[in-house]
């Protein structure tokens, strides 16, 4: 991942040697083009009536785009497992928050409980 600024000087005994994983430039450009293509696709598909699947298509494309940014632009693919675990936990919590909240909203009135619905 990253080195602390204070210790950076000690980590570079060999002068201008590259630190961390250097992603080849073609990968950056390929990711950039893919992101643009997906942006075009999601804006176009929105006008096709897929019923309730429109939102699933839109979100699937958004998740793919976000994953590409995370894996390549943010170097997550080349990061330590600890970093991966950390990011994974963040999205797990986000999912938990939305899922538990929605389980309340969606199930209101199912059993005719007083004061709800």
């Amino acid at each position, binding site marked *: 991942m*990253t080195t602390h600024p204070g210790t950076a000087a000690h980590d570079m005994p060999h002068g201008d040697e590259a630190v961390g994983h250097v992603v080849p430039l073609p990968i950056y450009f390929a990711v950039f083009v893919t992101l643009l293509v997906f942006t075009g696709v999601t804006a176009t598909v929105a006008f096709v009536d897929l019923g309730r699947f429109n939102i699933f298509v839109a979100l699937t494309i958004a998740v793919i785009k976000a994953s590409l940014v995370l894996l390549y*632009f*943010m170097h997550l693919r080349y990061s330590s497992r600890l970093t991966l675990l950390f990011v994974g936990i963040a999205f797990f919590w986000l999912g938990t928050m939305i899922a538990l909240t929605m389980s309340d909203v969606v199930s209101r009135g199912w059993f005719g409980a007083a004061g709800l619905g």
Partner: protein
Amino acid sequence: MWVFLVTEILFFGGLFTIYTVYRSLYPHAFGHASSTLDLTLGTTNTAVLIGSSLTMALAVHTAQVSRNGRLIALFLCATMLLGGVFLGIKAVEYAQKFHEHHVPGPYFHWEGGDPQHVELYFSLYFVMTGLHALHMVIGEGVLAVLAIMALRGRFGPSYFTPVELTGLYWHFVDIIWIFLFPLLYLVERHS
């Protein structure tokens, strides 16, 4: 930096949760309100922000492999420029919304049905895009400082941590927009 970004994910996550709840309750009001947004400007802005992420990644890459401070500064300035274009387009969109009286508050006006639910959508629209824009303004300031440091030859393969961390922040802000775009602009466009 990742620790900070995790708190940011949950910070924005609260808003995404509110959005999910109210969109599930009032899907059609959200659809009508979303269709008033300018899709051309929104799509352009998405592309502009992706471009700024590319130049940011190139700035980090340059700092990783060379001591060329001018080139690093050039990529940082390109990122700032694209970020500025994004904020400019966002300002045009906001101005349109003020002009159309779609801004929640005493002057809110809506001809169609469910004005209260539509107003709710626009409240979320302004809070979410506003918070996102605030993050970008902060990012622009950090990039400016980095560009000056790069010109002074502070960065190279031995020390590029500030560039790398700012890159993580900038890409994170891009990811937020990647979700905001379909959720705010692309609701029931087909109807």
